[in-house]
C-alpha cells in the first residue's frame, strides 16, 4: 500500500517537473524569437468566428455602405465634439436632433 502511494507520488512529482521545465523552455524560446517573426507567425484568426465564418450571414453591398457611412458619421460627430465645435454644420447627420 505504502509502496504504491510512494510510486504514485514520485510519478506525480515527475509530471509536475516535466511540465515546469517544458513551460520554461517554451517561454525562453518565445522570448528569444525576434518580434517581427512573432508578429508574422501570429496564430491565424479562428475561421469559425467573426464575419468570415462559414455560417455568418453574407452582408450585402448596401449593408457595408451603410456601416461605413454610419462609422464616418459617428467619428465626425465625436471629432467635432473633441475639437469643441458646436456649430450646427459640424453636427453629424445621423445624430442631429
Amino acid at each position, binding site marked *: 500500500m505504502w509502496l504504491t502511494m510512494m510510486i504514485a507520488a514520485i510519478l506525480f512529482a515527475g509530471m509536475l517537473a516535466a511540465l515546469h521545465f517544458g513551460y520554461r523552455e517554451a517561454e525562453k524560446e518565445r522570448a528569444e524569437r525576434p518580434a517581427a517573426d512573432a508578429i508574422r507567425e501570429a496564430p491565424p484568426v479562428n475561421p469559425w468566428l467573426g464575419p468570415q465564418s462559414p455560417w455568418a450571414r453574407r452582408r450585402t*453591398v448596401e449593408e457595408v455602405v451603410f456601416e461605413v457611412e454610419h462609422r464616418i458619421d459617428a467619428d465626425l460627430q465625436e*471629432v467635432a465634439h*473633441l475639437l469643441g465645435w458646436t456649430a450646427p454644420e459640424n453636427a453629424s447627420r445621423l445624430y442631429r436632433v
Partner: protein
Amino acid sequence: MSALETLKNAELFGGLSEEQRRAVAALAGERRAAAGETLFRLGESAEALYVIRRGRADLTFPLQVMGETREVRFQSLEAGRTLAWSALVPPHRLTLSASATTDLELLVMERRRILALLDEQPPIGQVVMSNLAGVVAARFHELLALWVREVQRNVSQTYR
C-alpha cells in the same frame, strides 16, 4: 430667399458689407437640382463655386465594396454651406463628389468671374479668403482626426 440674404448667412461670405455682398450677388446665378442628382464628381475641374440656398447635399467619395463601386457619404451640407471651394484654390480639382440629397437650390458663381472680383476688390478677397481658410482648416482637422483614428484602429487590430 434672395441671393443677398443667402450670401449674408453663407460661411464663405460672412463679414462682407452690404455693398460688397451686392457685388458678389451680381455675379451669382441660380441652379436647381432634383434629389439624387449629381452636382459634380471628384477629380473634375472646379469651374464654379456653389452656395446652398435650400435643401441638402451630400459630399461623397467612391469606394470599392465587394467588387462594386459605390458612392459613400462623407458629410451632409445644408443652407449656407459652400460646395466646390476648390474653384478658389489652384489646381482647381474637386476633392469630393457632391449630389443632391433633397431637391436643392444653389447660388452658382463661375470660377473665372468670382476670381476676377476677388482680384479687383482686395477687401472682398481678404474676407472671402479668410473665411475660406477657416473652411479648409475645418476640413483638414476633420480628415486628420479621422485618419489618426483609422491608423490607431489598424495598429490595434494588427498588433494585439
